[in-house]
């Protein structure tokens, strides 16, 4: 029974990673860049929700909407100001710019909101008890949210016109532009969706681990990036699967092996998986022609 509850806890944590990893993976698939500032968008979302719910005593749902709106706008603005001028630059230059944006967001947060840790209020307590197994409602909602997002996103990518345009852009930007797709608009939409998802993930994260501070996003950001690569970067089901596996591995190793070494174990599993499948669990193998 204890194992089952650790497993479900792991799935909850993994769902948060998966939602963040989706943002990483979508942006990578379309803009071919590692957006290291993604973790800091999470931090901004968490602060927005904190201010709305704890300081202005607005309903939780309003806090969620506010965080999503602010992060979506932030994502689009970052893309326009910092990444768009570098569309044709080398990937390393874009990476450094993303790091610059990350520093910028962290330090702005420190200046605006202080460096102290703020306690996020409890928005949902209680747990569902089945026999001797007790699962917090929050974990259930986290897992459910992740599944809903996954389904909606898959439908959006596969069934709508915009989704098709996104797939075309990720395949070949030049050809997509020739087909009449506005590539810049598609990239903006991708950043908007990724950042909106980051906001949702941020609220689920701070509702479970209730401390809000300016460098809050770094570690989940690195973990989610790992999850995205783990599942095969650029692949949406891959990001989902990678996030869940990572969360479960982390929670189980924390419970059964060692708390201090859980990070090391997570990364060790990643390395082993990449050695067996060099492009991640669900990544596409690209054949290089001579």
């Amino acid at each position, binding site marked *: 029974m204890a194992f089952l509850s650790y497993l479900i806890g792991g799935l909850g944590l993994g769902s948060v990673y998966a939602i963040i990893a989706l943002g990483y993976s979508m942006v990578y698939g379309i803009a071919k860049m590692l957006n290291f500032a993604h973790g800091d968008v999470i931090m901004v979302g968490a602060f927005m929700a904190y201010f709305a719910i704890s300081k202005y005593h607005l309903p939780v749902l309003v806090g969620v909407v506010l965080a999503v709106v602010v992060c979506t706008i932030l994502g689009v603005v970052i893309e326009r100001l*910092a990444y768009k001028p570098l569309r044709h630059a080398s990937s390393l*230059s874009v990476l450094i*710019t993303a790091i*610059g944006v990350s520093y*910028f967001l962290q330090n702005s947060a420190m200046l605006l909101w202080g460096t102290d840790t703020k306690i996020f209020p409890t928005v949902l307590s209680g747990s569902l008890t089945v026999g001797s197994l007790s699962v917090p409602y929050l974990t259930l909602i986290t897992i459910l949210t992740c599944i809903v997002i996954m389904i909606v996103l898959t439908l959006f990518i596969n069934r709508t016109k915009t989704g098709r345009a996104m797939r075309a852009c990720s395949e070949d930007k030049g050809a997509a532009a020739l087909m009449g797709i506005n590539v810049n608009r598609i990239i903006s939409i991708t950043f908007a969706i990724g950042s909106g998802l980051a906001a949702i993930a941020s609220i689920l994260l701070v509702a479970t681990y209730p401390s809000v501070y300016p460098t809050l996003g770094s570690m989940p950001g690195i973990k989610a990036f790992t999850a995205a690569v783990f599942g095969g970067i650029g692949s949406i089901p891959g990001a989902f699967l990678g996030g869940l596996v990572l969360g479960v591995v982390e929670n189980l190793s924390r419970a059964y092996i060692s708390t*201090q070494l859980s*990070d*090391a174990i997570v990364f060790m599993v990643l*390395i082993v998986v*990449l050695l067996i499948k060099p492009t991640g669990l669900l990544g596409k193998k690209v054949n290089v022609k001579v």
Partner: protein
Amino acid sequence: MKLLKSLLNQRTRSRTVTFALVIAAYIGVTVFKASGNMTRMVSSLLVPVCCYIVAAIGLNLNVGFSGELNLGQAGFMSVGGFTAAIVNGLTLSMIPNDIIRLILCIIAGAIMAGFVGWLISIPVLKLEGDYLAIVTLAFGQIIMSLLNNLYVGVDKAGVHFAFMTNTLSLQEGGKMIVSGPMGVTGNTMISSFTAGFVLILVSLFIVFNLMYSKEGRAIQACRDNKIAAETVGIRVSSTKTLAFVLSSALGGAAGALYMMNYSSVAATKFDFNTSILILVYVVLGGLGNMTGTVIATTVLVMLPEMLRFLSSYRMLVYAIVLIVMMIITNNEKVLSATESFRRKMKKKGA
């Protein structure tokens, strides 16, 4: 005359310029320091600047020269640093001379980091692109977590190691060298700016010798086109391993020097952010450009301190400088302008 000619040779001119620059900077700083006008803050940064320069030179060998994105250079620094601290603690009573001990520590740190780099290179170099990058990041994190749980003590009976929990029961007069999350404690500081300067010269010497050798050309060939390199008989995997191991060994030497500059350093000092910071120095200095690396590292390590008058806004300004610099250096108009300027200068010179 022959020496002068070889110094100004078109091909190796950048080497001469780099060495001249480093030596001039050393003389300048030493004179300035002797005049007593240097603030404490700047003089406390001298050794760290040297360390970051060496680590960045190593990373540039890997990222710029061999074309592999490495996000774990700080991990190798920590391996070198912790090894050096242990060696320092062990030989403290045996070798009273600080300089010999420092050299020993740096060599030990470099060898250990090079060895770990070799071990890591076996899985890492099987991968490509971003997958390779994430595995180096993962190794950096693993090294940090492992060192964070390491306990090393020394007493009359010898060295004692423990992992996870501190189970060491040292004899009377024993001393802890590494104490888990607190990292290295009670280290005897033996670094100096001159040592840093010599280490920079040595690493530049190694890297430039490699660059202009057969192996160096093989490394570049593997970077530019793996398949073409293979068809002309270059052994790709051993060539790439050479660059990776040398890069991590230089990182280890840098970490050793860094560690010897402080009495206590925690493993978390060498985290992902430090790796990224060194990568920023390399990219801003120019991939494969050692002169650029030296200048960019110096400027960027000093910049946050120089911006101290902005008080709490300094890191914000630093971030903006970083973004704006990247956007400007990649602007097509700026690029074509510098290109035409360069052509004009060449015409005049000829």
